[in-house]
C-alpha cells in the first residue's frame, strides 16, 4: 500500500480541478439520482430535493469530519455518542431559555473539543490503535450518558430551532451550513499546510515524520475537527427534535454509516488518498438510495441487505480501478 503518494492528486486534474476519481464518483451520483428519480416518478411518487438534502446534513457533517481523520490514517468510532453528548447537553443546558443559547453552544463545543483532544492524545501519545481508542471512547461516552440521562433532557428554545427548520429563500439554512462546512474542509485540505501534512501522514506516517511533519499534532487536530463536526450534527439534530436523548446518535448509526459514506466517496480507508467532495457524493448516494427505498416501500430489512451489497460493490469497483491505474 506504499504506492500512495502524499499529494492530494494522484490522478491528473482533467476538468476544473476535479481529479478523475472525484469525477467518477460524481458520475455515479448523477446516475443514481437519475435512476432513482425516474423510478420514483414512474411509481407516481414525488421528488423532494430539499428534503433529501436536509436529511443528508446530519450524516454529511459527521462524514466530513470522518474524512479528515481517515485521510490521516486514523478513524473515529465514537462519533455517534459524541452526537448524543452534544444533543443531550445542549438541551440540558439551554432548558428552553433563549438567554442560555450561547452558553449551551459554548458548553457543547468545549466538550466536543475535549473529546477530540482526548481521542487524539490517546492515539498519538499513548500509542493506542485508533480503532480500539475510539471504540473505548464510545463505550465511555455511552456509559456516562446512560448513567446521567435516561430520557429527553431539557429543551432548546424556539429560536434555536431556526437552525433545523429555517431557510434563506428556497434554501434550508442547514444545507447552507453544511455547504460551508464542506467548503472549509475542502480549503483546509487543498490549500493549507495542515491539509498537506494530513495527506502525507495518511500516506506514510513514518515518511512524514522523518520529513519533519509533527504528525502527532496534525492527527490530534484532525480528531478535534472531527469532533467539531459531531457537535454541529448534534446541534442540528437537537434543533429539529427540540430535546436531546442519549439514543439519538446510535440510532442514527453515524459511526458505521459515516465510514461507509467516506469509503463510498472514494477515500482510501488506509488514509492518504481521497477528499471531502467524494464524501459528499457518498452521503448523497446513501440518501438518494434511502429515499428511493422509502418511496418504493422496500422492506426496511431488505434495505440493509441492499445497502451492504451496494457499499461492497462500489468499493470493489474503486479497488479494481486503482489497480488498473497502477499497472
Amino acid at each position, binding site marked *: 500500500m506504499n504506492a500512495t503518494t502524499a499529494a492530494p492528486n494522484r490522478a491528473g486534474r482533467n476538468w476544473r480541478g476535479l481529479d478523475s476519481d472525484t469525477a467518477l464518483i460524481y458520475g455515479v451520483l448523477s446516475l443514481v439520482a437519475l435512476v432513482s428519480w425516474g423510478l420514483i416518478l414512474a411509481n407516481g411518487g414525488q421528488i423532494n430535493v430539499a428534503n433529501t438534502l436536509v436529511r443528508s446534513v446530519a450524516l454529511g457533517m459527521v462524514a466530513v469530519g470522518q474524512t479528515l481523520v481517515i485521510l490521516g490514517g486514523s478513524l473515529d468510532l465514537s462519533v455517534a455518542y459524541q452526537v448524543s453528548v452534544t444533543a443531550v447537553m445542549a438541551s440540558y443546558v439551554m432548558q428552553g431559555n433563549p438567554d442560555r443559547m450561547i452558553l449551551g453552544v459554548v458548553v457543547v463545543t468545549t466538550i466536543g473539543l475535549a473529546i477530540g483532544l482526548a481521542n487524539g492524545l490517546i492515539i498519538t501519545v499513548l500509542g*493506542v490503535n485508533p480503532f*480500539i*481508542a475510539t471504540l473505548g471512547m464510545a*463505550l465511555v461516552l455511552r456509559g456516562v450518558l446512560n*448513567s446521567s440521562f435516561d430520557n429527553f433532557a431539557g429543551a432548546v428554545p424556539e429560536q434555536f430551532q431556526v437552525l433545523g427548520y429555517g431557510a434563506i429563500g428556497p434554501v434550508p439554512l442547514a444545507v447552507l451550513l453544511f455547504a460551508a462546512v464542506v467548503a472549509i474542509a475542502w480549503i483546509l485540505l487543498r490549500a493549507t499546510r495542515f491539509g498537506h501534512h494530513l495527506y502525507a501522514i495518511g500516506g506514510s506516517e513514518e515518511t512524514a515524520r522523518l520529513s519533519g511533519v509533527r504528525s502527532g499534532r496534525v492527527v490530534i487536530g484532525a480528531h478535534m475537527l472531527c469532533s467539531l463536526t459531531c457537535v454541529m450534527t448534534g446541534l442540528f439534530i437537537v434543533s429539529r427534535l427540540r430535546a436531546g436523548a442519549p439514543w439519538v446518535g446510535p440510532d442514527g448509526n453515524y459511526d458505521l454509516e459515516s465510514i*461507509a459514506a467516506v469509503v463510498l466517496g472514494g477515500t482510501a480507508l488506509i488514509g492518504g488518498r481521497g477528499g471531502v467532495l467524494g464524501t459528499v457524493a457518498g452521503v448523497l448516494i446513501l440518501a438518494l438510495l434511502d429515499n428511493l427505498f422509502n418511496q418504493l416501500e422496500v422492506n426496511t*430489512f431488505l434495505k*440493509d441487505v441492499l445497502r451492504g451489497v451496494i457499499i461492497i460493490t462500489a*468499493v470493489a469497483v474503486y479497488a479494481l480501478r486503482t489497480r488498473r491505474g497502477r499497472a
Partner: protein
Amino acid sequence: MSAGSPSTAAGFEQELTRPWRERAWRQTRGAAPIFAILLSLLVWIAIRNPNFTDPPVFLAFLKRAAPLMILAAGQLFVIISGEFDLSVGALITAVVVAAAGLTEGDPGRTWWVIALLFGLGAVVGLLNGLITTRLRVPSFITTLGMLLVLQGAVLFWSGGAPRGSLPENFRIFGRFGFESVPVIEQLPYSVIILAFVGIVAILLLHRTTFGKQLFAAGGNRRAATLSGVDVPLVRTIGFVLSATSAVIAGILVGGFAGISQDAGAGYEFQAISAVVLGGAALGGGSGAMVAAMAGALSLEALFTLLNLLGLPKPSRDAVQGLIIIGAVAFAAYRLRRT
C-alpha cells in the same frame, strides 16, 4: 507485540526454522500483562464472592465465557493475517434465528440444521475472504457490508420477530453437561467444546505451516509472497475459521440465552477487544492464541466483577472502555521501552 513478526524475508526464513515451542513462547511472552490482569480480576471476584472458587460456580462462569472465548480464537486468525472480521456478531444472530426458524422445535431436525449452519458459516467466511483478497475491498468494509446483509436478511426472513423455537437437543450444548461428575457436579458441554476448540486453535496457529504462513502474511505481505506463501488463500482460510467460530458460538448462545434478534449484538467488538487485550496487534503479524482467549476470559471476568460490585449497566460500559484503552496503552508503552 512480541518479536515474532518477521519483517524481512530473511527474518521470516529464520522464523520458520525456529523450534515451535520457542516460537510459541516468543509469541506469547509479549502478552504477559493479560495473564496478570486475568489473575487479579479472578482473585478480586473470589474476594467479593467466596463461592466463586467452588468448581461448579467457576464452571458456570466458564460456560458463560465460552462463546466469547471461541469467537476470540476465530477472530485472532483474521487479525494476525492483517484483517478485521466485523460480521461475526451478525452471524451469531443469523445462526440463532435460522436455527429456531428451521428446526421449529423438532428434535429430529437438529443435526441437519447444525450441518446447514456450518455450511452457512463456511459460505460467509469464504465470501468475506474472497471479496477481501480477490476484489481488494478492505476487510473493514467487506465485513461491515456482510454485517448489514446478514442483519437485514435475518430480519427480513423472520419478519422482525424471530419465529420457531429451539429443540431441547439443540439447546443442550449451551445449557447442559455431563451430570454427577465427582467434585465438579456438572461438566458443561460448552466447556468441553471450548477446550476442544482451544486446543485445535492453538495447534493450528502455533504448530502448523498454515499458522506460520498466517503470521508471515500479516507481518509483511511482500516478504511472505516472496517466500512462496499464497497470501490470499491463507487470509481466506482465516476468514472461514472466524466464521466457523461464530457458528459454534451462535449454537452455544442459542442454547443458554434463547432466541432474539439481537442475540449476537456487540460480539464483534468484544471479540476484537479481547484479541487486542491478548496482545495481538491490529494490522497483523503478531498475537498468541492462549493470550487472546485469556483476553476474552478477562473481559467476561470484568463483566462479572462489575456486576458483583453493584455497578449499573451504564457505568460498566464506561469502566470497560477505560480498561480496554488502558490495557492497550500499557502494552504499547511496554513495546516502546523494549
